[in-house]
């Protein structure tokens, strides 16, 4: 019984999965981080307690938008792989 394990293919699976998976998680985390920064940045006025409903759409910082856009592109590529391939 000869068992051949394709270590090269396995290495490729690991490296590509690692790059795609960790890359996507990091991008999304950076986006969430940038998004959360906008509400924590101005703590100068603690008197306004009812300031919670922050104006969402207008306050998305460019970095967050960029990160989420990149995430969306990666997800779209994933969908392409699922559907087309």
């Amino acid at each position, binding site marked *: 019984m000869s068992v051949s394990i394709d270590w090269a293919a396995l290495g490729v699976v690991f490296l590509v999965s690692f790059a795609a998976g960790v890359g996507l998680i*990091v991008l999304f*985390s950076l986006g969430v*981080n940038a998004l959360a920064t906008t509400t924590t940045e101005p703590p100068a006025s603690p008197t306004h307690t009812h300031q919670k409903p922050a104006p969402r759409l207008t306050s998305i910082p460019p970095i967050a938008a960029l990160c989420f856009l990149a995430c969306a592109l990666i997800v779209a590529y*994933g969908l392409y792989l699922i559907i087309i391939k």
Partner: protein
Amino acid sequence: MREGPGVDVIVLAVIITALVFDFTNGFHDTANAMATSIASGALRPKVAVAISGVLNFIGAFLSVAVAKTISSGLVDDTKITPTVIFGGLIGAIVWNLATWFLGLPSSSSHALFGGLIGATWVAAGADAVHFATVVSKVLVPAVLSPIVAGVVAMVGTYLAYRITARRKDHGRVVRGFQSGQVVSASMVSLAHGTNDGQKTMGIISLTLVTAGMLPSGSAPPFWVILIAGTAIALGTYLGGWRIIRTLGKRVTEIEAPQGLAAETSSTAVILVSSQLGFPLSTTQVCTGAIFGAGAGRRLASVRWGMAGQMAIAWLLTLPSAAIVGAVAGRVAETGTAGTVVVALAGVAFGAGIYALSRRQPITARNVNDLPAGPQPAAAPA
């Protein structure tokens, strides 16, 4: 082979058991995509299983790839008869029900392969089983794929917490990750639907081909896609709450960033390896990713004892299903009466497991409540 009426009964039996298997495959694997989303509060339990069910249904229609062989080369496909497939399916269903009752995530594909191997072995001898292929396509991926997914999820989780550690607005961070989880969990569900739905369709189509009811090499007819997609979607919607609780609550306390990391890693590993033709089990990948996500967060306690239990279940999956499949195939081989006996025994086993499960039912309502029962490792809150 057998004369007219006998063949018809066995073909009908195969189609029905294939759909039952697809159904068990559905509720056995809901946890893969949705356990971490339910545990982290990203999705309400009922909403989660509904999304997963719909995406599994859609997934059945999406894929253009057709399963060309029943066993993926694990056994000599020319030796496979409808009776062998029937026995194999019974073995797979029995193992799926038993592990579901115990709340253990195990691979539905491995159960199916095991059942087919056992049934082929008794029908055509050990020579018809390709053991080298079993090692390279089943055993090696079973060991390596959870580790790969686990490492990706662990590093991803660590970085996700590292990046967002300074944010004081914790609620907004959590909500951000929860929103992301809806997408990542959906991707796992969709990938699952396209993969596992194909298996049952392939089995039914190839059975129709061997029975001469479908020309060789033809794609699954629309009605086959429809009923197979419906079976897996209904099974998914049913929930399999026992396994969801295991993966969502009993491995580690899952938070939203961990859930996102686990689901994203699972999707990445599944998609990359299916592109490169590397066979693996969705269940094992997702389980590995959840352990990795637990290990990647500081202060999180991972119950590694669960990993031992699951490893044993994975190790037993193929041989156990093989034994049941062998017995079922052997009895069904004796003719229509034998087939009926096996079918009735299968129904009785299913009813028994269901009755047992009603003693301590786990449902959408209590899936996230963990009774402080016989939990070996004390979990610091």
